[in-house]
């Protein structure tokens, strides 16, 4: 099994405050890894380390993160983020751009200007994000004038358009209704054929449904990381079992 992303002994800080302690996780290619754990345990911080968004808010890290065996802390963050896309917890489409331009934004940032080249990619990504049927007749409407669930799928399409290798998702469905959530989960299932996915979720069922591997974080530490099936049937640690059964958190 090919390892796409390998995190070794990762510590993360906000100033002097250490919020991740010695995390080591291998993410296999074309698999979905779910990150679970109680609020404030460092899940968002962890995935924001993976595309170096952590440093944007002034955070620092120790340890190494290898992307295809290359230390990503030593690469150019702008190039890195083209390879490691991110979908945020709250949908954040660009309100000053149309639906079409939202998806095209990443391409344009990469210098693709030719509309003939852009149009088919936009269509493909909107289809991939299961949004095409709903918006194909109003591609020129503002990206902010659609429902929350549609906005989130738009953000996914926007991320796909850059054709990253890895997609990070930080609770992508937490602001959505059950139907939109199902759509996004189906989508994740589809996407893993082509992408490697790391998803943070608060929802145990969701983790169990969509992921191949699950990591359980607790106050900045990685308590357990294993096959999702095993994690949800017979976890090694008592703490994991308690959390999954809803005894705390």
């Amino acid at each position, binding site marked *: 099994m090919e390892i796409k992303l390998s995190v070794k002994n990762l510590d993360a800080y906000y100033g002097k405050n250490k919020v991740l302690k010695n995390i080591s996780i291998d993410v296999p290619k074309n698999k979905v890894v779910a990150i679970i754990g109680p609020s404030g345990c460092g899940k968002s911080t962890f995935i924001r380390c993976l*595309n170096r*968004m952590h440093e*944007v808010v002034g955070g620092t890290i120790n340890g190494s993160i290898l992307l295809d065996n290359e230390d990503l802390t030593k690469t150019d963050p*702008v*190039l890195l*983020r*083209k390879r490691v*896309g*991110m979908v*945020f917890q*709250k949908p*954040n*489409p*660009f*309100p*000053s*751009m*149309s639906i*079409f*331009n939202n998806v095209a*934004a*990443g391409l344009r*940032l*990469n210098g693709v200007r030719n509309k003939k080249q852009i149009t088919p990619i936009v269509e493909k990504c909107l289809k991939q994000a299961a949004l095409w049927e709903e918006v194909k007749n109003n591609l*020129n409407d*503002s990206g902010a004038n659609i429902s929350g669930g549609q906005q989130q799928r738009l*953000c996914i399409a*926007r*991320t796909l358009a*850059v054709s990253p290798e890895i997609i990070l998702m930080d609770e992508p469905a937490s602001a959505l209704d059950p139907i939109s959530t199902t759509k996004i989960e189906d989508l994740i299932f589809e996407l893993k054929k082509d992408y490697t996915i790391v998803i943070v979720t608060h929802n145990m069922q969701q983790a169990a449904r969509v992921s191949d591997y699950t990591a359980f974080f607790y106050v900045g530490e990685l308590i357990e990381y294993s096959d999702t099936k095993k994690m949800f049937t017979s976890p090694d640690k008592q703490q994991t079992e308690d959390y999954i059964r809803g005894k705390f958190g």
Partner: protein
Amino acid sequence: MRKVETSSKKKSLFKKILSSSNVGDFIFERLTLLFAVSVFLLVILLGYEMYQGSKLSIEKFGWSFLVNSTWDPVREIYGALPIIYGTVVSAALALIIALPLSIGVAIYLSEVAPPWLEKPLSFLVELLAGIPSVIYGLWGIFVLVPWIRKVVEPYLSDKLGYLPFFKGAPYGFGLLAAVIILSVMVLPIISSISRDVLKSVPRSQREAALALGASKWQSTMIVLRDARPGILGATMLGLGRAIGETMAVTMVIGNRALISPSLFDPSYTMASVIANEFTEATSEMYLSALIELALVLFVITIIINALARLLVWSMDRKWKTT
């Protein structure tokens, strides 16, 4: 019979007040509506009063008031073209200088400056915006004008003297001084409002751009897109200030109603004419002409604001789809 009717009417109003889920809300709604309407009425009343006051001059001169270039109180001939010209040109040039600088300052303050520098700098900019204009005027007379006379104008006429804009004797007092002082006055206004507008764009927008692989510069451009209407609003406020500015301008502009392409020549603006000549306006016609000037200033301000609105709408539509 009648009595019953009114009492039932009263009752129904009373009921309405009670049934509208909250009495406070009801009062609040009506009260704010009243305020909104009164603003509207105030504008109309203002326009009407000025129209009444300037009737004499309007009837006598008609459109020639706007296109005639002689402003001569002695002969009682009032043509405001040079004054309108001076107002529009000084404000427009000031804006052309101040706008790019202001946007630069705003971007630096909101996107680039480290927090320890941003706070004192923003405070300073806001302080500048609040300085009374007469102080700018004094600074203009004692510092700016001599500097322009001794350094700027000789330099410009030496290097670019073949252009009509830089011809003539270096007085110091003139359109150039007014333009510079106006741009200095307008800069802090536009920058501080634009900074607030940029700051109010949610961080999630910047993160969205960065996560797509945007550079700092590119993500700033996206933030700027969101901030466009607000920045335009700030610009309009700046333009309004530049057009209406009286004290500082009249202290440095030379105060002569004159149309000349040269920035070295004296000029005059509507606001300064009104302020300077109101006390001398002894004849009714003179007074009426000055009020008509105020009316023109009022209308120009309204037109500029309307144009700005239209600009925002059309740009929004165009930018979204391209």
